[in-house]
């Protein structure tokens, strides 16, 4: 038995697709290449097998995702995770929020920021810099995007330079993308009782 999760928490759940993923034995050579399947590596998540239905996008999405979240310079990796969590809270993507809250906590060696966000939502107690990052990322994730000049200036005032602000915009926006796949195409689930 599995339960579909409906509340934010920091423990990454499983993901159960709402459509039938590509079966590895039926995958085309292009799909196998995008999935990076080799004779010694045949482990592919249900999520990636689901996205393999649109292999042209999958091929470009993965390196773009990695560049926005992990490339050197600019805003710190933990702060990019904070922006990702802010967008995921707007879109109520339980899976993305959990995975990226867990990464933030690991990078920061501190769970308090994420615990406060999940307990108190937008009223969480945050440092001035985290507050400026969260507020801008959260507002940008609304539809239509609702970020204001005051929020951008607050982020500048909190010390973010142009490179960092660009990374903040990119990481929040990227989760506008990721959330619309994860939250729409599947459910976050956990074995009952876990």
């Amino acid at each position, binding site marked *: 038995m599995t339960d579909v999760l409906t509340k934010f928490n920091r423990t990454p759940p499983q993901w159960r697709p709402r459509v039938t993923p590509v079966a590895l034995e039926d995958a085309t050579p292009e799909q196998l290449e995008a999935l990076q399947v080799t004779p010694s590596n045949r482990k592919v998540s249900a999520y990636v097998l689901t996205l393999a*239905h649109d292999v042209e996008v999958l091929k470009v999405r993965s390196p773009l995702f990695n560049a*926005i979240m992990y490339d050197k310079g600019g805003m710190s990796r933990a702060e990019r995770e904070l922006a990702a969590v802010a967008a995921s809270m707007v879109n109520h993507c339980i899976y993305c929020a959990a995975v990226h809250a867990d990464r933030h906590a690991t990078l920061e060696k501190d769970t308090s920021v994420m615990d406060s966000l999940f307990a108190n939502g937008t009223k969480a107690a945050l440092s001035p810099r985290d507050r400026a990052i969260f507020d801008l990322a959260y507002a940008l994730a609304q539809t239509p*995007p609702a970020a204001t000049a005051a929020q951008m200036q607050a982020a500048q005032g909190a010390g973010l330079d142009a490179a960092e*602000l660009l990374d903040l915009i990119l990481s929040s926006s990227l989760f506008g993308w990721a959330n619309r796949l994860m*939250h729409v195409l599947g459910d976050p689930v956990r074995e009952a009782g876990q």
Partner: protein
Amino acid sequence: MSQTTLLHHIGATPPEIAAALEHRANIIAMTQSAEDAVLIPRETGAWSHDLRHALAARIARLHGLGDLSETYGARVNDPALAPVTDPSKDGAAQGLAHVCAFMDKVAARTRDVTAGDIKGLQDAGVVDADIVRLCEIAAFLAYQLRTLAGLRLMSEVWT
């Protein structure tokens, strides 16, 4: 950096922002590759290049980015699909009411999407691969439109 839809619509930026964009030129280039994969793929499934651009124009309009909506709308060659670019039209006249309703919800009310919305498409005869394709269109646009909105705001307030 070579011209991309994103850079074209951001327009001129203060030198500090231009330098930041140059530093992330790989991301800007990959963003254009992603737009191409979403809007002009080799394998279209059930969704033609024209329809994809019409849906992109519709979603840009839902995000309040009229100029980008115009850009995408101008690439719709089939006049019968022109009404799809307008979010006030439900797509029924084009036989696309189920597609427009789904795309509007994924674009603008993401948090409210449920398993029932996917089931609704399946019941309407949309195959799973085409459901994933629709989601990627809405999802990529969510990213590109916010990146554009954020960079415009940043340029506007830059001192």
